[in-house]
């Protein structure tokens, strides 16, 4: 007989963003119990993590265990002793023939354990091993840790409770409904669990909650926002959206500010009109089915009005002091304890902007870029740093290039994000990120593992993306490494590799090959990479790459790295001379146009000529020839890095 299984971990409200990960983890930990089963279903609301499985056996299959006894030839006392020890009689022992002869064997029947027992023993571990980014204790020091206190546990196998206890909570068949619309103790079975919850205003399935929200918004032009929707789905047990409105006067405020207040502070969707402009409306999602008296709508409208009023107050207050008059105030804003204030950073950024080829607009933008950190609006809405500075700069009459540069200078915030829209912004953003990177590396603030408190990976990724996609061909990263040079170079190379490989889809060996011929000028690197990619499918490429690998190995084995000139008088007529002549003929030409001529000559050389010649001078000359070839034809990429199939 196969049994259904239900586990519900009842908790206080779990942070929404941790729930999907916890469910996946729950599945893995359950699989480790190695209990046969058919389907597994995982569900969660803020107050419960739920696993349901079908088709568990009542008990594990019986198995046989073989215990080898004395040899057939052993004295009867020994055989009797063995039998006694196994709790059986000598006549019930079997005899087996092995390579070493015949032996008595006891075949022990081990009864399969009851699944219920395995679960009762294993589930506390499954629950307490669930991974959460930040856990707490609640029963006292040394007590169990979980994401939030565990308040009830449902564990049913078929009709039976799987008994266990965690943090003083005993498992049972009682669940809990919606905090205010449902009952606190509800008896459930594996069959009626989901329905009983529904009766008590809990929709178990996240998918169903999501669909409920979206379906009830039919006809409302809300701005789709998958991440926000996810948050709301895991913040509610019985969600329903409501649409509220705000005074159209607030639309005079920058849209960026309005959307940030709605999205980040209030978890509202914003709404658009038929032309795609921001409408004076919002969508909030409640954790109750309806708002018959309009209390919830009016409450949210009032909160939003207060927030917008604040924003307007800040917007107007901030205008009283221009950005340009705030530069000195940056002396009071810490950038990083060891790296000084934002005023110092600003000065460094200005110098870097010049060094990067920026003109007076870039320098001006750098000078004003951090001033918005002293504004009330940014103190209130930190996620709008840069954007607010840009908006103020525009109002205060800065040229378009300057205000747009300030607006964009934190971009790209992710690999999907775009780079600053104009050249001034690209240079200034680059100056900002390079300053942060080289400053942090110089004072030893280097990311390790998952620890990256200054978001240096993102900064480095931004540097790569801006240079490549902004086509800043003149920038050579080697000029900007500062005191932490070696570590920073390695860090940047990792990011460059990641960018071309994972974001741009180049093969990893092509990336390695092209970077080995120079990594620090990224536009050039991109061009060379494209050339390698084009060359790769041509018939001569892989054989030539294999030959270059051979050349590298030969040179490495001989520990040969002298530049030197080839001594023509030492060349042997035939393949060696032919290869040298060919080299002389094609040197300096693009690899694409010479590869088909070079390859047969190289092949023939290796076929007929012994590099390791007995005469030391000849040997040296041949190594010099190979080294010269390698240097000449590795300017695009070091082809010996290509992984070949031959």
């Amino acid at each position: 007989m196969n049994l259904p299984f239900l586990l519900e971990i009842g908790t206080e409200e779990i942070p929404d963003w941790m729930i999907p990960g916890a469910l996946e983890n729950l599945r893995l930990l359950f699989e480790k119990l190695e209990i046969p089963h058919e389907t597994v279903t995982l569900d969660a609301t803020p107050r419960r993590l739920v696993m349901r499985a079908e088709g568990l056996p009542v008990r594990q299959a019986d198995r046989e265990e073989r215990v080898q006894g004395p040899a057939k030839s052993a004295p009867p006392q020994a055989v009797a002793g063995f039998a006694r020890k196994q709790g059986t009689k000598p006549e019930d022992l079997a005899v087996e023939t092995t390579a070493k002869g015949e032996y008595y064997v006891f075949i022990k029947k081990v009864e399969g354990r009851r699944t219920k027992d395995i679960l009762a023993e294993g589930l506390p571990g499954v629950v307490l091993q669930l991974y959460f980014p930040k856990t707490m204790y609640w029963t006292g020091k040394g007590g169990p840790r979980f994401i939030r206190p565990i308040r009830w546990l449902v564990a049913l196998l078929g009709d039976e409770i799987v008994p266990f206890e965690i943090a003083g909570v005993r498992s049972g068949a009682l669940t809990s409904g919606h905090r205010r619309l449902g009952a606190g103790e509800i008896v459930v079975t594996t069959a009626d669990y989901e329905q009983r919850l529904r009766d008590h205003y809990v929709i178990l399935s996240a998918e169903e909650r999501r669909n409920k929200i979206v379906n009830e918004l039919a006809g409302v032009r809300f701005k789709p926002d998958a991440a926000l929707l996810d948050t709301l789905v895991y913040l509610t047990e019985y969600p329903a959206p409501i649409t509220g409105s705000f005074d159209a006067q607030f639309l005079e405020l920058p849209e960026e500010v309005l959307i940030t207040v709605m999205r980040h502070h209030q978890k509202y969707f914003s709404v658009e009109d038929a032309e795609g402009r921001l409408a004076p409306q919002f969508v909030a999602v409640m954790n109750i089915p309806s708002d018959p008296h309009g209390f919830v709508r009016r409450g949210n409208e009032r909160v939003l009005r207060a927030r917008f009023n604040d924003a307007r107050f800040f917007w107007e207050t901030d205008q009283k002091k221009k950005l340009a008059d705030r530069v000195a105030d940056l002396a009071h804003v810490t950038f990083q304890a060891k790296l000084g204030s934002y005023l110092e950073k600003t000065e460094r950024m200005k110098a870097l902007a010049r060094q990067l080829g920026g003109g007076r607009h870039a320098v001006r933008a750098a000078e004003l870029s951090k001033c918005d950190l002293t504004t009330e609006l940014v103190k209130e809405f930190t996620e709008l740093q840069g954007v607010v500075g840009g908006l103020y700069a525009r109002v205060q009459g800065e040229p378009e290039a300057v205000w747009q540069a300030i607006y964009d200078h934190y971009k790209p915030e992710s690999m999907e994000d775009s780079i600053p829209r104009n050249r001034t912004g690209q240079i200034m953003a680059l100056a900002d990120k390079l300053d942060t990177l080289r400053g942090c590396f110089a004072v030893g603030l280097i990311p390790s593992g998952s620890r990256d408190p200054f978001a240096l990976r993102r900064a480095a990724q931004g540097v790569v993306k801006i240079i490549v996609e902004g086509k800043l061909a003149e920038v050579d990263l080697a000029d900007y490494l500062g005191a932490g040079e070696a570590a920073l170079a390695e860090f940047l190379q990792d990011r460059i590799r990641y960018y071309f490989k994972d974001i741009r889809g180049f093969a990893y060996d092509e990336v390695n090959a092209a970077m080995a011929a120079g990594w620090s000028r990224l536009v050039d690197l991109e061009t060379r990479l494209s050339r390698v990619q084009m060359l790769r499918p041509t018939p001569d490429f892989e054989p030539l790459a294999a030959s270059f690998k051979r050349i590298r190995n030969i040179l490495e084995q001989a520990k040969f790295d002298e530049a030197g000139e080839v001594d023509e008088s030492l060349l042997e007529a035939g393949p060696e001379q032919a290869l040298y002549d060919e080299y002389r003929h094609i040197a300096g030409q693009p690899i694409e146009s010479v590869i088909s001529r070079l390859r047969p000559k190289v092949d023939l050389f290796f076929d007929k000529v012994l590099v390791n010649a007995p005469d030391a001078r000849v040997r040296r000359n041949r190594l010099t020839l190979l080294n010269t070839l390698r240097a000449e034809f590795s300017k695009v990429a070091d082809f010996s890095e290509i992984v070949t199939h031959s």
Partner: protein
Amino acid sequence: MPSFQDIIFKLKQYWAERGCIIQEPYDVEVGAGTMCPETFLRVLGPQPYRVAYVQPSRRPADGRYGDNPNRLYKHSQLQVILKPSPADVIEQYLGSLEAIGIDLRVHDIKFEEDNWEAPTLGAWGIGWQVMLDGLEITQFTYFQQCGGIDLDVVPAELTYGLERLTAFLQVKDSVYDIDWTPPLAGQHCASGAETGHEQQPAGSTGAGEGGFTYRQVRYLDELQYSVYNFEMADIPTLWKLFDLHEGEASRLLKLYDPKAPDKQRFPLLPAYDQVLKCSNLFNTLDARAAISVTERVGVIQRVRKLAVGVAQAWADQQLAQPVEPPAEEVVSR
């Protein structure tokens, strides 16, 4: 429609019925109810404790000269400490909202992750901000560490923002318009406390016949302290005071002897008052923009060192006292 003081009465009554000591505000200036000895020191050690009090909380940098409808130099927190936290602590908390007339079947309540941390106190906890119809009304924290010490018993801390809560219930857009008292002569309608707290038209101000508004009670505080904190506080004097209070606190801490047989007499509570003085002076200097970048981290460290020092000495001093029997099981089910 409950007045500001009605709400305070009802919440105190509610928590008194659940076994809390009702304390009066602490008489040294603090930035938050958490900093009062009733929380900061009482959460340490194994003894159970339950207390509720209203604490005026001073944040010099938040002053707005009485101009901003939602922001105050000094706001009022209702602070509740339940040590150990009972298993039904959230139910009890929701009950307190119902006790002041909020029908949670028709209002939207959500618990959104918000972990609390106070680096100057070496304290942090896990918890939520509680949102009522989109308004943050309470910070709910399970303390984990205080004064750098892992807590023996985990207390629940509930911090209600009383002005916000009242503005919500009275449907006022500005805290200055909320009624501190009910109208003197008018019929203070009892039904207002049920669900009909939206009957007053928005924008209506004034506490009716003979009553007092928040503005009448508090406006001058906001104005004058803003002027003082932002414009007139004498920076050298504040620094001098800071140094004096710091000196006194650290002098006392150095004298504390954990091996002394009569260590219970040692004045750690007065030493802690000195720390609170330092903290408030730091906040005032900060509002006055008198702390430079290089100084800032250092000054925070100085306050933290004192706070942690007092907490550790206090935890040690508690061991000298006969410990009350431990609390009942945290979870009973």
